[in-house]
């Protein structure tokens, strides 16, 4: 994965701090010399407006505001920064994700890039590192995980990073975004998922890195789309709207989307729930068998949400023949979901992973199935924590969109969709995203995450991410331990 500097599409960056230069400035240039980050510049015409976005604010040990002989500089938190994001995607986390997508590097100290501010779950967990470890060279540390752990004559798929992209359908997200995700997955040797809206032809060159989804709406599902890929995913439920079908509101059903989904332009699409052909594990097996028959080499992933009996669902999926159980926790992303469902239905992923991991271990099948977690994985640290709780890997979605400069305004569902060009199929708005730019932003983010994971493993004295699976002793709960 090659990192390339990929700056924001927008003229003004949202900075954490605002620096102001008052009229008392005597153009002495001390601030220029003091700042290591290039915030200040003085041209022949006079000093420029400080480049706030580069300022690390309170984390700076040698502050220009303290050095200024005339007290002409002032620094304060940017109100726009404080209004960005929410509890889970705290402003710091959004800005640090942007930083990683731009530079491919670990963010500087003034941004909290590991956790959000939700006050629970991953945000209350901390990795515990041993004091003494054997030094392992970074090149020897691997983050590769296998996805097929069954003894079956099927693709022996391995992915080089312990995550892949979650389902985002054609209809909810822009085609350029889908292509960029596919390209980035190919580069990183991982996967991305088509979601339930059909398989656009533009994705065919990336077939080997695409998971095609069969959801309750069965939009665009054909034999050839199932045969084309190495992994097929059954979406039984989605964390953001557990127990409810997919929502695509009318205005986003453009002629192209309608054609792909064989639906009517402008008419809202509410996928049924559940699969009306599945009311038992036996029915579920019939579903899995159907796919295995159509695609004799392909793997089957089962995406489920997190009810109280999620462990039963997981073991049932194993016996039905699935290769991957993908748990989507209740705080997962969505293009459109009822607010009541997002907040209240099903349990957060932080509880579901250990529950399922433990149960699969007790049943003696844990090493025969890949457990993938999603629904609130926002950073490399979340990935590490999810794995330490018992998952083999993660699925990410919102983090990728944030890398493409999503501000989490939550208006993906309405009107023409996202006005930042991400979650839209509007011909004009979707032009805002250039595929090359988006691909590189994702590669940069992946790269930074991988670097962090390698760093974490190194500090834990582990050679492989596989060693971290279920290592609860590597985690500390801030409230209880």
């Amino acid at each position, binding site marked *: 994965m090659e990192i390339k500097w990929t700056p924001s599409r927008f003229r003004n960056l949202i900075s954490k701090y605002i620096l102001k230069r008052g009229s008392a400035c005597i153009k002495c240039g001390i601030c220029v010399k003091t700042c290591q980050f290039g915030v200040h510049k003085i041209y022949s015409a006079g000093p420029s407006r400080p480049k706030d976005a580069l300022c690390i604010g309170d984390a700076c040990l040698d502050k220009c505001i303290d050095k200024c002989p005339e007290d002409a500089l002032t620094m304060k938190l940017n109100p726009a920064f404080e209004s960005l994001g929410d509890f889970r995607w705290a402003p710091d986390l959004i800005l640090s994700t942007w930083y990683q997508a731009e530079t491919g590097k670990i963010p500087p100290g003034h941004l909290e890039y590991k956790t959000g501010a939700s006050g629970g779950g991953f945000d209350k967990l901390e990795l515990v590192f041993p004091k003494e470890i054997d030094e392992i060279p970074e090149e020897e540390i691997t983050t590769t995980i296998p996805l097929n752990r069954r003894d079956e004559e099927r693709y022996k798929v391995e992915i080089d990073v312990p995550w892949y992209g979650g389902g985002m359908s054609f209809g909810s997200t822009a085609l350029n975004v889908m292509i960029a995700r596919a390209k980035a997955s190919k580069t990183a040797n991982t996967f991305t998922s088509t979601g339930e809206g059909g398989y656009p032809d533009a994705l065919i060159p990336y077939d080997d890195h695409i998971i095609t989804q069969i959801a309750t709406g069965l939009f665009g599902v054909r034999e050839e789309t199932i045969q084309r890929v190495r992994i097929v995913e059954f979406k039984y439920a989605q964390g953001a709207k557990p127990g409810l079908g997919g929502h695509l509101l009318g205005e986003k059903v453009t002629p192209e989307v309608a054609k792909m989904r064989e639906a009517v332009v402008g008419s809202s699409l509410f996928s049924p729930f559940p699969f009306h052909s599945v009311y038992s594990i036996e029915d579920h097996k019939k579903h899995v068998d159907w796919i295995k028959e159509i695609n004799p080499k392909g793997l089957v992933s089962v995406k489920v949400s997190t009810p109280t009996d999620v462990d039963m669902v997981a073991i049932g999926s194993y016996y039905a023949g699935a290769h991957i159980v993908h748990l989507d926790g209740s705080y997962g992303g969505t293009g459109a979901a*009822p607010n009541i469902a997002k907040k209240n239905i099903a349990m957060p992923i932080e509880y579901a992973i250990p529950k399922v991991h433990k149960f699969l271990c007790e049943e003696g099948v844990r090493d025969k199935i890949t457990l993938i977690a999603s629904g609130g994985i926002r950073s490399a640290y979340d990935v590490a924590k999810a794995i330490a709780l018992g998952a083999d890997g993660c699925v990410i979605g919102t983090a990728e969109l944030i890398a493409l400069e999503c501000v989490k305004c*939550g208006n993906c569902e309405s009107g023409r969709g996202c*006005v930042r060009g991400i979650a839209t199929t509007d011909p004009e708005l979707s032009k805002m995203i250039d595929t090359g730019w988006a691909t590189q932003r994702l590669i940069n983010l992946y790269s930074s995450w991988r670097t962090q994971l390698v760093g974490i493993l190194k500090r834990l004295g582990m050679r492989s991410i596989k060693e971290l699976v279920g290592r609860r002793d590597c985690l500390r709960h801030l409230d209880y331990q």
Partner: protein
Amino acid sequence: MPKKYHIKPKPTPNRFVPPRKYVIIEQDQYCLHCPTNACIKKDCPYDVYTQRRFDSAELRDIIDYFCKGCFRCIQGCKNNALSRTLNPEYLVLGDEYWTPEIITSAYNQSETGKIPVSGAGYGGPFTGEGFDSMWTDMSEIVRPTRDGIHGREYIATNIDLGKKLSLLEFDNEGGLISEPPPLIDLPMPIIFNPLPFGVLNQEVALAMAKSAKILDTFMIINESKLSRQLIPYQNHLIPLTNKVIEDKISGFRMVEFFDCNDVLALIEAARAINPKIVTLIRLRLDNGVVARVLELTKGGAEVIHLCADEKGKELDATNPQRDKTRFIKEIIREVHLSLIEQSLRDKVTLIVSGGIADSSHLAKAILSGVDGAAIDLPLLVALECRLCRNCKEGLPCPVKLETVDAEWAAQRMVNLMNAWHSQLIEVMGAMGIREARRLRGEFGRVMNFTDLEEECWK
């Protein structure tokens, strides 16, 4: 199958501009005064800057109402002259229980009658106090869900108000000897509680009565407030009283008595006047509630209405430690379980009021063990109440509740209830429960924060 319950929502605009979460800051000192067609404001994808106007009623610019917070103008302005901040007016709305999110969401629901739907994952805190510390279950594969919301399967939200017989007795010829007590079939597990504050004029009372009639539910009203104007709606009114007044009993389908020592005698007296009447007992939710519910149920109470405070906390004047007071969720559970223990649960209907602020609270209260809820403040919020409580001190109402029109107000309440009803169906559908009656006390379909933490971490 019962006739399908259907509420007709109708777009009913706000009269006042509700506060939005963010305000746009235009820093004029940085404006370069670009030619109009080069200004970033012209490119707003939501046409915020062209829709903006000065509201002559509120004497302010209402630009923020239109803004959806996409940051495009802020990030695009040539001289970085635009910014935004959290709106203090939004932040001060309501209190820690009646949060700005709950209030503004209710405004939207009352305006459109629709379920709030949005993009992106949930952004709130991981957990919280009261109802926020529980999640409801969903079903997949092994326990099928019900596809209720789009009418593909029928989910009944009816509950029965009244006393139920534990067994039926027949004579030798097979004829029924037992006389079934009167029972009221409520199509949605909600009745209206008297509003605790607000401008409570005739129009507001009329609006509540009208919407109760449209929704086929009931409105509890203090008997002293029963005016002639409300008589056409008497099939949907529940007079609230502490004595038996003949004309407040006959002609009504239900009556509510304040709890008192001889309340069971009052019920007998009421039944003597009108044998068809279903009686409610209004009980304060305090320390003694469990014992009192058991006592009343054994004595033949039909419906017990448990009243907590506005934030869903028990009312206990004797407890000086306010933070130790329990939340309705826990008390309901205790009441429900002690009734079950004594094989009495099906004899009585339990209604709770206080702290039911949004539709998820309704579902969670029922899951905790009541049959239904009585709501008050949400109805006031449907009329754009800002919950500022100015009226309690005789100060003017910021949304001029005194000038509401009953038709408008009734439709707003109907819209809100339609949205709640649809959301209740969403939650029930996700759980695979097709009857609100079966939702009651389904602890197995509830996940509690404390239990999960315990299981996971301790």
